[in-house]
């Protein structure tokens, strides 16, 4: 168990907070607690959202007593066992690095005092953990990037980052699911979009997944579904429902 406290975010949400750091063990515990809370609270929760080191439970403040929810959070968190932790899936992402797809690759190389090829090698030679999914549908915050290429956010964000852009900001890396504003350093692009409503499983990532990037020579290469398929998850996505 991780040390935690529970604080209110208004009258319709409670936040379980662990010590604030990017730590795979803390995050894995949060994933396990979130999953157990969804089960335990059933329809008393309307959403359970994982942060780097937090779990936020949303509920209807008219129908559900927050003191009761707080008690349940404490009880469930004390009771979560390590074997209940979900290991998540492995997601393989083909990336066409550099050129028009990675306009900031040279800047990251300058930051790392290395060549662009070395940035690609360092970025693609390790596995990343998905810590949380947020910002826009499907956007996964992955960490931790090799500190030698962990270039900070750009001083002024772009107004429109192309969908599928693979980017670095400090120790975090991610893939832009749609055209959005964004301040991260763009180093490549993939056709495997984090959110694709036409896909059987529209969302590619969930917290706890592990991600591997594979350099490919041209955009679209490596998209063979036999090799690069979204993970088949044992868990079914949370049940979206209109709320009363």
């Amino acid at each position, binding site marked *: 168990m991780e040390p935690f406290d529970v604080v209110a975010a208004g009258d319709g949400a409670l936040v379980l907070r662990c010590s604030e*750091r990017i730590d795979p063990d803390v995050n894995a515990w949060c994933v396990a607690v979130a999953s157990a809370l969804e089960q335990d609270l059933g329809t008393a929760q309307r959403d359970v959202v994982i942060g780097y080191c937090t779990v936020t439970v949303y509920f209807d403040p008219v129908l559900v007593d927050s003191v009761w929810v707080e008690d349940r959070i404490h009880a469930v968190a004390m009771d979560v066992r390590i074997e209940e932790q979900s290991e998540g899936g492995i997601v393989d992402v083909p990336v066409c690095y550099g050129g028009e797809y990675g306009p900031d690759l040279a800047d990251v190389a300058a930051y790392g005092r290395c060549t662009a090829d070395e940035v690609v090698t360092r970025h693609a030679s390790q596995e990343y953990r998905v810590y949380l999914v947020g910002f826009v549908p499907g956007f996964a915050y992955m960490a931790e990037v090799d500190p030698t290429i962990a270039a900070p956010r750009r001083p002024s964000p772009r107004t429109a980052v192309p969908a599928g852009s693979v980017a670095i900001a400090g120790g975090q890396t991610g893939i832009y699911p749609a055209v959005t504003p964004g301040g991260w350093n763009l180093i490549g692009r993939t056709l495997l979009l984090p959110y694709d409503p036409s896909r059987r499983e529209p969302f590619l990532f969930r917290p706890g997944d592990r991600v591997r990037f594979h350099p490919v020579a041209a955009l679209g290469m490596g998209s063979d579904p036999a090799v690069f398929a979204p993970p088949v998850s044992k868990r079914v996505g*949370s049940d979206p429902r209109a709320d009363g």
Partner: protein
Amino acid sequence: MLTSVQDLGRWGLQARGVPVAGPMDEYSHRLSNRLVGNPSTAAALEITLIGPEIRATNDLLCAVAGATFPLAADGHPVAMNAPFLLRAGASLRFGSRERGARASVAFRGGLDTDPIFGSRATSLIARMGPFDGRPLRAGDVLSVGDAPSEHRHQGTHLGFAIPAGGARVRVVTGPHVEMFTPAAYETLFRERYTITPQSNRMGYRLEGARLAHRDRADILSDATAIGSIQVPGSGQPILLMADRQTTGGYPKIATVISADLPLAGQLAPGDWIAFKPCTRDEAHAAARERFGPFYGSHR
């Protein structure tokens, strides 16, 4: 003009980054639906500052609640907060806004767009929902669903006093109390803030006395509740509203209570907002008082 289709929001997928969206003034959304006999979950139009012209191709039972406008159906004045019939071929027109910022227009049967993940709410930030998540524009055609089998509208609902020029709303402190100085809380509860033009359905950028952090102004990203008052390094707060993104990296000094979010939703750029602390118990009691009448057998 900004008109969009909204229901009570797309809950259940924030862990996948899907914003909740939904009405800026949930009370008026529920009220307009109630007045035409719909459940609160029915989709209605949210109009902002300026009303569109709505032409009926069939007879429609309509109701408008929230920001006050002079209304005319087929050229004849009709009242807000009461059902009226819009005949096939007739138009509903809105005069100049009198008070408030947003009105909900409900149609008996509810707007019948294809639900996305179980909801008809429009998220402008995620471009998700009816019409690919964009605001409505002239020429768009919407269908209305089958009328509910029973009409359980009982009594009259006067709603709440729609604010003119500004509002004081209640907040629960936190979640990041320890990241702010006591002086920051004194400031927050003493000063009035102005809603700047850089405000929309995602959030209101406020301008006023600076709120001081104890040391740092960023956190590891966590979930962002509606009504959160997040404070970036500038010390100028941002009030997160219906179409907020699901997570954020700024500390949140306080959170507007559910019962007072409709008041906040009725504010426009240039209006003032002030904050008053309350306890969680008071917040729950206020939520039950505000929304309780819409619950029960006919939600």
